[in-house]
């Protein structure tokens, strides 16, 4: 049975349709890349799954997560799933972290709010372990640091640790590497692949960058102006794009084999 099945998902703001009849399936532990330029509706799709669409959005269709239709779920029940069974990593780690609290507090926050009777100390331990899992050195000390004391890549690691703390079944990463330096990007993608291997969590990777998708996704959905242009396995999309738009996107990407050897070759995936 698939972990997440999205069927005929449509998101509208008034008369403007930002996502139009989207559908895809994601098996347990699988990984899916949603690719498109800005305004293609890819981020709205992720927010729809999280139930975090901005005010004024009208969302129809089926979002079935482990047999539960998230779109019809009450806000209360949705909250129990959000941040516990489905976690999200955002694009800009600096602005996505609250400057007023230590990273430890923020990592532990999700864990504490989804598990009852967790002491402050136990939550702190969970935060430290999560930070160790994303390879933040001296996690025991850095847990009390504030976001501004970390570098961009380290902040994104903090965000990933935050997502991991509750051991979610699905992680949605919305452009997690866009705001980072190229070398750091590769490290973060490696980390995401590693996390997936270790925890067995499924991953939805939202990006404008096909190179990123080739790194982490088994299946790819290409979106444009809210419509699905093409769906297929990563291998098929890269070797034999059916739609001219996909072809154009591929042409825009610097050939991946030209890149530094650290990046795996076409369709390598994991």
């Amino acid at each position, binding site marked *: 049975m698939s972990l997440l099945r999205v069927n005929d998902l449509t998101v509208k703001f008034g008369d403007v349709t930002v996502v139009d009849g989207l559908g895809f399936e994601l098996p347990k532990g699988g990984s899916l890349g949603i690719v498109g330029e800005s305004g293609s509706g890819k981020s709205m799709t992720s927010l729809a799954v*999280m139930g*975090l669409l901005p005010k004024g959005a009208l969302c129809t269709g089926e979002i079935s997560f482990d047999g539960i239709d998230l779109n019809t779920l009450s806000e209360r029940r949705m*909250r*129990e*799933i*959000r*941040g*516990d069974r489905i*976690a*999200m990593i*955002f694009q*800009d780690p600096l*602005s*996505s*972290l*609250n*400057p*007023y*609290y230590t990273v430890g507090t*923020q990592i532990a*926050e*999700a864990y504490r*709010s*989804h598990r009852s009777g967790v002491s402050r100390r136990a939550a702190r331990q969970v935060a430290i372990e999560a930070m160790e899992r994303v390879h933040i050195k001296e996690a025991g000390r850095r847990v009390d640091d*504030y976001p*501004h*004391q970390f570098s961009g890549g380290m902040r994104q690691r903090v*965000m990933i640790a*935050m997502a991991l703390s509750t051991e979610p079944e699905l992680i949605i990463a919305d452009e997690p590497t866009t705001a980072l330096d190229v070398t750091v990007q590769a490290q973060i993608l490696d980390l995401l692949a590693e996390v997936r291997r270790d925890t067995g969590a499924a991953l939805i990777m939202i990006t404008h960058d096909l190179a990123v998708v080739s790194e982490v996704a088994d299946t790819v959905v290409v979106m444009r102006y809210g419509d699905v242009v093409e769906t297929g396995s990563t291998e098929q999309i890269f070797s034999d794009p059916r739609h001219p738009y996909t072809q154009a996107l591929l042409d825009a990407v610097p050939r991946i084999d030209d890149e530094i050897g650290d990046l795996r070759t076409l369709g390598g995936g994991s």
Partner: protein
Amino acid sequence: MTRYLVNRVLGMLLVLFLVALFTYMVFFLLSPDPAVQICGKTCTPERIDQIRANLGLDDPFPVQFLHFLEGLFLGRDYGTGASAVHCSAPCLGYSFQSAQVVTDMIVQRLPVTAVVAIGAAVLWLLAGVIGGLLSAVREGRFTDRFITALTLGGMSVPNYVLALALQYVFVVQLQWLPFPQAVPFADDPGQWFLNFILPWTVLAIGYASSYTRLTRANVIDTLSENFVRTARAKGLRPHLVWRRHALRPALTPIVTIAGMDFAGLLGGALITETVFGINGVGKLAADSITKNDQPVIMAVTLLAAFFVVVGNMVVDLLYSAIDPRVRAGATT
């Protein structure tokens, strides 16, 4: 941190010194000769010269200013012989008109001004933050529009007009409040409190209006921050999202500004104190202006500058305690 503190204090002292110098200079150039004032109507040129020499008024400007500074830190004597008046540090000058040491005049009135400022600050902070929150939560709806209209009104009506209007309605017409008169707190606490209701309100309304607008804007801005979205994505309960992730960043700047405004008020709420006849520092300043009692005017100006500058520094330190980003910046 220590270096930062030392730098701040030095900067503060420099500003205060400049304010003192500038103020002293302006008054030295502009004010009428105090010797003539003291001398009165039946006056001979010899007597004026004598007074001048006695008080050091014939010294050149730098010498007089140094004496003033000396008085500020060490205290000084006015006049010589039996008629000498000692003014102990911090000596802000001597009012020849009321034959009193200015420091004493101010110290007497400072508590009243503090009461006015504290009461008003409590009112405007409460009203401003609550109003701003309500407005932000109901953004674009009736409540928001209504509150915004009220704040515009509150900022447009000058506080002396407001003072007269409220006094007319609540004291003259409705007679809900007693006619304002000076009652010591110990004599009749109830009456004392009632007397302050109107001044507090009048003073608070202008500030409350701008605080409401500020709170509203800050809260709305903060709610659209990415970290609030992160907090929601973690599945936090709405009250936690609000309390921890929206309110703290939104209200911190308001605390800062409140501190500065409050410090500014300690220098005297000139108009409010005058209209309601409250015997505070502000009224002292206004009365001295009418009487042209320069030493007092200068002392109040200096005092107000002192409060503003010190308030500024306290607020900066407070801010670095609240905001971790600034804290880090201060240590490095």
